[in-house]
């Protein structure tokens, strides 16, 4: 029974990781490889604020989120804006940025920047303490993840479907030039999209990282999980994203209980390829049907 509970929690962590990426790629069609990198960067910045600068917990979190979303905006404004039209270059550029950040953080004490290797660096938990439900004991941090996850999902759904900004993003994603004709400044939209997307990645880091330590490998796995959730759930559909995250969460929990965590990656991978072949536009996506029609 507790596998089921842990599966749900794991599912929500996947959802949290994926929401930022899904918002940027799913809604605005901007490939953001650097999602995983920003996730890890938030961890480091928050850690430095708390430990080196000794700032209170709240302040350091807010500061690191602001810095990360500014980094996201900077990525678009100075880099992605110049490769908008060309799909091949877009992928390569965002892939290069992600690698630069992740590998850069692995450095050992170069210049003033102390590399963070080794297990010693852990983000403090948001809430300590444990609550034992009739079936299994869960620490509050995991419950927090579920709450934050659902909160963000709800906010994102409202934002994309009803707020004017959400409409602008959907327009820019489907046909940038047509959006320009209607007075939607696509560059400003993309800046906002990346800013929010990066902040979401940061938020995911703040909530999930305390469970483990801050390391670079999580950058790659967050990216793969986020893409897996987006692929399986279907682009741009929030219902699909949540469902995909939960299924993935359950599957990986069961997998690690049986086969061992090593095979998790293989499982996530197998699912991506399997879903893409069976239903190329994901469970809820419409792209395939539309492609047929046009």
């Amino acid at each position, binding site marked *: 029974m507790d596998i089921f509970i842990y599966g749900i929690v794991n599912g929500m962590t996947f959802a949290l990781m994926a929401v930022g990426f899904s918002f940027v790629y799913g809604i605005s069609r901007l490939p953001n490889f650097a999602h995983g990198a920003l996730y890890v960067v938030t961890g480091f910045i928050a850690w430095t604020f708390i430990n080196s600068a000794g700032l209170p917990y709240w302040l350091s979190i807010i500061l690191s989120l602001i810095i990360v979303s500014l980094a996201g905006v900077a990525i678009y404004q100075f880099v992605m804006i110049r490769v908008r039209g060309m799909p091949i270059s877009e992928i390569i550029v965002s892939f290069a940025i992600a690698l630069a950040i992740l590998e850069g953080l692995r450095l050992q004490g170069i210049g003033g920047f102390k590399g963070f290797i080794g297990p010693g660096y852990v983000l403090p938990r948001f809430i300590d303490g444990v609550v034992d439900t009739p079936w299994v004991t869960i620490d509050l941090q995991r419950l927090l993840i579920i709450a934050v996850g659902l909160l963000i999902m709800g906010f994102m759904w409202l934002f994309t479907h009803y707020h004017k900004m959400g409409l602008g993003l959907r327009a820019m994603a489907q046909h940038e030039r047509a959006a320009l004709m209607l007075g939607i400044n696509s560059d400003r939209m993309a800046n906002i999209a990346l800013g929010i997307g990066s902040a979401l990645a940061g938020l995911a880091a703040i909530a999930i990282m305390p469970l483990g330590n801050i390391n670079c490998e999580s950058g790659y796995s967050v990216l793969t999980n986020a893409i897996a959730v987006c692929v399986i759930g279907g682009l741009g559909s929030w219902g699909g994203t949540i469902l995909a995250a939960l299924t993935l969460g359950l599957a990986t929990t069961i997998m690690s209980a049986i086969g061992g965590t090593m095979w998790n990656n293989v499982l996530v991978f197998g699912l991506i390829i399997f879903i893409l072949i069976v239903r190329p536009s994901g469970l809820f996506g419409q792209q395939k*049907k539309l492609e*047929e*029609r046009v």
Partner: protein
Amino acid sequence: MEEEKEPIIKVRNISKTFGGVKALNNVSFDLIEGEVMGVIGPNGSGKTTLVNLITGFVKPDSGEVFFRDVKLTGLPPYKIADLGVARTFQIVRPYLSLKTYKNLIVPLWSPRARRFAGSRGGDRDAVAIDLLEEVGFERDAYVPYKLASVLPLGYLKRLELARCLALRPEVIICDEVFSGLSMSEIASMVPLVENLRIKGASIIMVEHRLRELFRVADKVIMLDFGEKIAEGEPEEVMQDPRVKRAYLGEEIEL
């Protein structure tokens, strides 16, 4: 038609729905060998869906399509083209980065073209230039060497036709070959279709321009909201009241 010719394409009650929209509803008809059949109907009546269904780009929900008692439904598009059922696209699809005559190398490289090539298979460029002349490129000689992206729409439509001819098809399906062309361009396209017919190819023409279509078509079927509402000789179909109301709106233009 003296003796009853064998129908080359048999379409048996196919229907297809897209996201709640009934694009095609139980449509059946036969294309007799060597005949030109017109498919007319207002926008959204399912004409392009019909073409996509026959050529395998879209799978029908129900019903079957036969090409000389070979079942086409379920086959991928390249297999259907390999059997000899070639199509042009409503929105032209040239290879913009290639030169005009190089565009024809792709179909000439296909397994079907190679089977028919025989002795002359080796030099595909020469075959490509001949094909371009066949569809009326010969008037200005340097056009085949220009990039496909600079060609006007009239030439691109002819290139689509040439792409089908490269496969030496037995059935050609033209999806609105005349739409978007100027009067003079249409006038020069009609003889092309006519000599295709003389060469014995059976043609299905999906079209809006009735005047030009009726000069070429032996038989016409009319689709409206996915259903076949009329079939027969062009003049006969035109008199049918339903056709007039559904197609030409209030004033009768013809």
